[in-house]
């Protein structure tokens, strides 16, 4: 019997935030990211019969998404002239200072930092997978979306003290899960 099975009706709740954070750092455009995720879900449904159950659902969806991202770059790069590198002075005042202007600012955020932060984000979402689904949802609403305590209580029909107990459990579980690699 395969180790993993597919449950498409749960895909959005379980994986959409993970897929979104994975995509946004690679394409840097929300609209494009949303389209690619939508295409990924549909392609996954079409090829569900080929899922062998060896990898987890998320790993499998990510492998499809990776191909969609590569296809996206192939498509935009094949448009003639779009792949040209244009070198311009940033303004008239700096004309002639091209080299100085282009030198990397060592205090600036680097692409490596960005990727590491993105990996951290994905690690957080992975850790949230291991806690109760509803608790993870409440934690995300409160911590990532920054929603009001009162609004979340109304949305999930819980009391503020329920909410803080859930937040406490989620934070403790998350800290324990991240401890090995990130603390």
């Amino acid at each position, binding site marked *: 019997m395969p180790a993993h099975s597919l449950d498409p009706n749960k895909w959005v709740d379980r994986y959409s*935030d993970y897929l979104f954070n994975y995509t946004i750092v690679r394409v840097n455009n929300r609209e494009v990211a949303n389209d690619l995720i939508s295409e990924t879900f*549909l392609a996954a449904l079409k090829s569900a019969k080929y899922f062998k159950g060896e990898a987890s659902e998320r790993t499998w969806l990510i492998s499809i998404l990776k191909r969609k991202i590569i296809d996206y770059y192939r498509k935009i790069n094949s448009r003639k002239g779009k792949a040209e590198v244009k070198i311009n002075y940033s303004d008239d005042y700096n004309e002639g200072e091209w080299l100085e202007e282009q030198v990397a600012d060592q205090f600036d955020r680097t692409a490596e930092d960005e990727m590491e932060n993105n990996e951290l984000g994905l690690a957080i979402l992975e850790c949230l997978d291991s806690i109760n689904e509803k608790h993870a949802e409440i934690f995300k609403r409160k911590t990532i979306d920054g929603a009001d305590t009162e609004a979340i209580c109304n949305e999930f029909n819980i009391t503020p003290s329920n909410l*803080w107990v859930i937040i406490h459990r989620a934070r403790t579980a*998350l800290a324990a899960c991240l401890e090995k690699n990130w603390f």
Partner: protein
Amino acid sequence: MSEKNYFFIDCSKAADCCNKAQYKEAKLLDKAKLYLHLVFCKTCRKFTQKNTKLTQLIKKSRIQTCPEEKKEQWRKEIKKEFAEERT
């Protein structure tokens, strides 16, 4: 309530206040009580340190969630496609 109990809180109240402080929802007086508790309690000092670090990590990750409308749209698309695949 005696004056002593008013200022000295137990570990569960300290943890509660520490969690609220991560979201800037702790009252000033409760925060003062938390700091007083931390002077005496090593376990809570450790917890507070970890909890604060977690807040920093989440901020640093710049993690985002998809808007609910988008999720709803995807749910519908999947449901429709899934039903068609089955028939």
